[in-house]
């Protein structure tokens, strides 16, 4: 971890957003929420990390070679397309893009899971996918119209 959450906040206060976004800290956050429930100042740190991830992705400022942003993007694309996540397909997608050799390494485990019927091959597409995207479209219009910024920023949270 490049910076502790405390240092992240200090850096943000000092106006060093780029430094924060390029650090590995935000992408190492597993959303375990310990910081959020323990923070004596009541800061919702996990939410803040989400906001920083979002900003990093928006500005294209992420740590070089980091996989997590790739996963997030693939995850979002899949949900926007099918309405749900298909674990197998998501992993295949991401690994093909980042480290295809890892797929080989995972083969034996994968075979075991297939044998136990735990790896369905086909994704499920929900019926309401088009109306869901309509909602998302309406939301984008609201965002572009300035009614609501991209996220619920940590400041207001």
């Amino acid at each position: 971890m490049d910076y502790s959450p405390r240092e992240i906040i200090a850096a943000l206060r000092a106006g060093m957003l780029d430094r924060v976004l390029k650090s590995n800290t935000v992408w190492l956050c597993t959303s375990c929420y310990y910081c959020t429930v323990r923070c004596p100042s009541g800061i919702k740190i996990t939410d803040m990390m989400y906001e920083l991830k979002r900003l990093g992705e928006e500005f294209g400022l992420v740590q070089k070679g980091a996989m997590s942003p790739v996963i997030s993007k693939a995850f979002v694309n899949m949900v926007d397309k099918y309405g749900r996540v298909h674990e197998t397909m998501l992993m295949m997608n991401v690994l093909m893009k980042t480290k295809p050799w890892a797929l080989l390494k995972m083969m034996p485990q994968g075979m075991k899971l297939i044998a136990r019927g735990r790896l369905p091959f086909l994704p499920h597409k929900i019926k309401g996918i088009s109306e869901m995207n309509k909602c998302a479209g309406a939301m984008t219009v609201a965002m572009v119209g300035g009614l609501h910024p991209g996220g619920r920023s940590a400041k207001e949270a």
Partner: protein
Amino acid sequence: MEFAYYPGCSLEGMNKAYDQSARLVSKSLGIDLKELNDWNCCGASAYMSIRELRAHLLSARNLAMAEREKKDLAVVCPACYTNLTKTNHYMGEDARLRRTVESALKAANLQYMGTVKVRHLLDVIVSEIGESEVRAKVTKPLSGLKIAPYYGCQFTRPLGDYDDKEFPTMLDTLLKWLGAEPVYFPLKAKCCGGILMTTNESVALPLVRSLLDSATQNGGECIATICPLCHMTLEAYQGDVNKAFSTGFKVPMFYFTQLMGLAFGFNKKELGINQELISSKALLEKHLEVAR
């Protein structure tokens, strides 16, 4: 007791057995789980990370549909629980967020008034069904079985106020009702690192190792889970841990609903125990007469 049931994406895939056993034991306890029609992804961490607002929209769609059916929502995946609850909570306290989400829902003729309660199935069983009814269903008590009760992160954090945020005890309580012996497990609510496994193995593996260490050192013969991601991580990566740290873990993993099922007398196949990666056969034979 009737709920709209929200299985969540990972119960459709690798954690099918969780879904299977949850439905089975719920039914036998008189909890009527009706799968929420055409539910969608809750907007879990990976989505929330870069599309926060839209993640709330995803959860809100599920909530709106449950509201239309006039039911509360029963959830088994703690991540889904957290996301749905968070949306519920934030829409209540942040008027601007509410307005934005409401107006977006309108595009699909949906509306959400904030009346749905999101409940984790474990909370429903312990708080609503209660000791006497659970005990009454136990035909094959898990006597002598020493279990490390593992809650993971998002069962009570940040918003589940039905149990302690640092040291939850609900699962311990339930396991006792089943006749089993929950062991002291100080890491019971720590992160398994699952979400980092593909991206930062060097960070994630030691977390898995410390969990297995603590569980076994305190006498745990197996681990009970309530989270599909935790379950998957501890199960699928035990081999990697053994390789990386020269350890020899072979700790069987159970969803808490599978343990309930065993105690209620269901067979292993019905509960999806046959889908496990680390065999529990020897352990179960030692403690229970479930050679079936």
